[in-house]
């Protein structure tokens, strides 16, 4: 499938639904991708199954603070510079790039890399949503080495990383982003086609695109639109959790992440009930009248009640009217090994993961 400039709009909107409140505002990534496609041509989106087993795939992403990225917009060449550094290291050219994250800003950056480099983009990712750190990857969980990895900035600095573990890759690379002015651009988890097929979550870019198109044309039935698209995917049918007004938002900064919660008071048929959503950049758990009804890694997304637009956690505000919905995560995301990396307790939430009841 060929992706044109206009298609990126849908991917970006759908990625905000899959971003579960985090992952950064995809707007800048979208504009970067649109300009790259305008200048370099359309991007071929390929299914993982189309990859040769010995093909080289190098994922690319932005790392750091989205608040910085909306101000210091990238030059455009940074992620490609990281990818090229890995090509030199590995002595062979990449056959494709792919996103490591399908939620938020990182859904759209790799389109710009694919356009600039003239290589295909694999329709898959390693998070199936948005997560904060580089070890939060199915690639990591199912045994792919994150390194060699490279991090670049807009001034032409490129740092090559070789680390003992993928958690150390995260630690060191994040330190570099601070020195690079708050954002860096990574190429990591270089993989063979066979590894992509084994470890990636397939079809997430086309799912984001379908979700975006559905939300855009849904009118008042955004929840229904999302429900019908997800029902026909590897995720599972979205379920409506709550409808209400935001009556409290609390945030605190811990180790570079924004932790907090939002309280909603019910409207319409939820009148009289309350919902509390815990977040660490992304929405992690939802409690209805004190009982957990959804937890990470299932997806919890807050939509503006009127427009249906997804609201990032950074923009949650007292008084906003919202709908909360949850989307079951694909099976590869909720294996025992996966829950050890991103189950509720790994984020300090005192409950075990219980799959959504839809």
């Amino acid at each position, binding site marked *: 499938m060929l992706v044109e400039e206009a298609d990126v709009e849908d991917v970006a909107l759908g990625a905000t639904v899959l971003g579960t409140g985090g992952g950064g505002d995809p707007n800048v990534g979208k504009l970067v991708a649109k300009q790259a496609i305008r200048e370099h041509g359309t991007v071929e989106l390929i299914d993982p199954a189309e990859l040769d087993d010995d093909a080289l795939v190098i994922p690319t992403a932005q790392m750091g603070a989205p608040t910085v990225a909306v*101000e*210091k917009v990238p030059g455009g060449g940074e992620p490609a510079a990281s990818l090229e550094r890995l090509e030199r290291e590995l002595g062979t050219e990449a056959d494709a790039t792919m996103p490591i994250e399908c939620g938020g800003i990182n859904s759209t950056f790799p389109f710009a890399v694919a356009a600039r480099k003239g290589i295909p983009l694999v329709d898959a990712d390693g998070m199936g949503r948005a997560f904060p750190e580089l070890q939060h990857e199915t690639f990591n969980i199912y045994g792919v080495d994150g390194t060699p990895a490279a991090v670049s900035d807009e001034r032409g600095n490129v740092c090559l990383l070789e680390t003992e573990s993928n958690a150390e890759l995260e630690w060191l690379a994040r330190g570099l*982003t601070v020195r690079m002015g*708050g954002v860096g651009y990574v190429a990591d988890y270089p993989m063979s086609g066979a590894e992509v097929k084994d470890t990636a979550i397939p079809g997430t870019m086309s799912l984001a695109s379908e979700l975006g198109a559905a939300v855009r044309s849904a009118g008042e039935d955004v929840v229904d639109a999302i429900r019908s698209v997800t029902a026909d995917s590897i995720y599972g049918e979205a379920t409506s959790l709550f409808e209400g007004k935001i*009556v409290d938002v609390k945030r605190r*900064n811990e180790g570079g*992440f924004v932790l907090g919660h939002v309280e909603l008071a019910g409207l319409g048929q939820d009148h009289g009930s309350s919902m509390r959503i815990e977040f660490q950049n992304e929405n992690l758990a939802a409690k209805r009248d004190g009982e957990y009804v959804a937890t990470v890694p299932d997806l919890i997304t807050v939509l503006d009640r009127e427009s249906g637009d997804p609201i990032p956690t950074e923009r949650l505000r007292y008084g906003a009217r919202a709908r909360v919905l949850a989307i079951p995560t694909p099976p590869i995301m909720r294996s025992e090994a996966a829950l050890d990396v991103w189950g509720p307790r790994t984020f300090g939430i005192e409950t075990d993961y219980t799959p959504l009841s839809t």
Partner: protein
Amino acid sequence: MNGYRLGIDVGGTNTDAVILDEDDSPITQTKRPTTEDITTGIVNALDDVLDAVAFTADELEYVMLGTTHATNAITERRGLNDVGVIRLGAPATESVRPLLEWPDDLEAAIGGKTAILDGGHEFDGRTLNDLDEAQVRETVREFGDADSFAVTSVFSPVREDHEERVAELIHEELGEDVPVSLSNEIGSVGLLERENATTLNAALTSVADEAASAFLEAMDERGIEAQLYFGQNDGTLMSVEYALEYPIFTVASGPSNSVRGAAYLSGVENGIIVDVGGTTTDVGAVTDGFPRESSVAVEIGDVKTNFRMPDLISIGIGGGSHVTREGDDVTVGPQSVGYRLTEESRCFGGETLTATDVEVASGSVDIGPESPDVDAETIEGARSHIRDRVEQAVDRMKTSPEPVPVVVVGGGSILVPADLEGASEVYMPDHYEVANAVGVAIAQVSGQVDRIFSLDDQTRDEALETAKSEATENAVGAGAAEETVDVVDVEEVPLSYLPGNAVRIKVKAAGTLGDE
């Protein structure tokens, strides 16, 4: 304390004017149709209120004007300047060129001259790239026929020196008179939106100049020696000099004026405001006397900016709304006779059954020469339709389940029942018809700060104090009397996904106009 003040609000349908006495009480008011050139309607309203008072024009101390000149110029692409758009940030930011998302006709209307040059800073104030003065001079000469310039530097809300140096270079190259808009004075963090707002501002400088000159001339002809102020989008005022430099801030001051005016007239500082016009009803919320802001970024003329506007729900019900009945089903709006109410509605001898006619037929009000004959079921159905829609909108704006005060203002206020569900009390204050004009007349002067503070060498409390005192200073600088300035809004957002301590702090302070 204050002398007489005159407030004028230019709306889509009507231009309202009101004069307040020394105690800020309205003593006369008028409504005139808004004219195509805007200025004629303003002058008509001005003459009305001046004719009605016993004192002379030179006793007016302040004139406050909420105008749609700038908004119309953008939406109609009329009278806009050719703008030289200069961004400082290369080699960063080149992946999204300036004006990338602008509609083609708007980009063409401002000439489409853009450049991305070396410069800019990091979030913590470090230099991103040195400014290349020769490169700037060359670009400015290349853009030499531009009417005005818009300069945006990466992280200028943290450090503005590169933008300021470029302004000096432009003036050295092309003379002191070329208007230059600097982004750090226009908007907050978010380069592309701030650049858009700055560019729109630069495009509006001639429009603002013409509008202000025309109005100052009209004041002069009538012997008005008052200080002129313009209403801003956040419900506060700015001086003429400031409005000439920052015309973009006059965009969409109307809704803020109506919320502020309603709060003032009713004395309700926290509650819901229902503003009923001829075609639509806007429902907003007032928090500590100020409009609650929307969390969504605002598009002006299809261009995304990072302005915040009042949080409003607009429903298609007003005094001129068509009332239709199909079987037992009665609906009101969204079609409306609008400003043709006095020609088309039945109480004025017209053909169309409007919401106003229903109220006249019910005997609750007496408007127009005719009294239309409407059956009881239609009256009942229309009233209950209006009640339902307004109650739903009020419920959506509320932040707690408890009943809250509701203030109803605007020309169509008679449509709203006095016993709304969810309302602790429904206020329809005196002078409700011209609440917008009252809102701009009593508006305060504000100052803001919105930038990223690094917490490596200061505590969070120190950063907050710095932001608060800078916002207060900015308010005083804009004309507020120091002893009246209060911090009215503080928002703190830590930078996510970034180790180290950085926080984005937004503070707004406001006070009343100081004595000259």
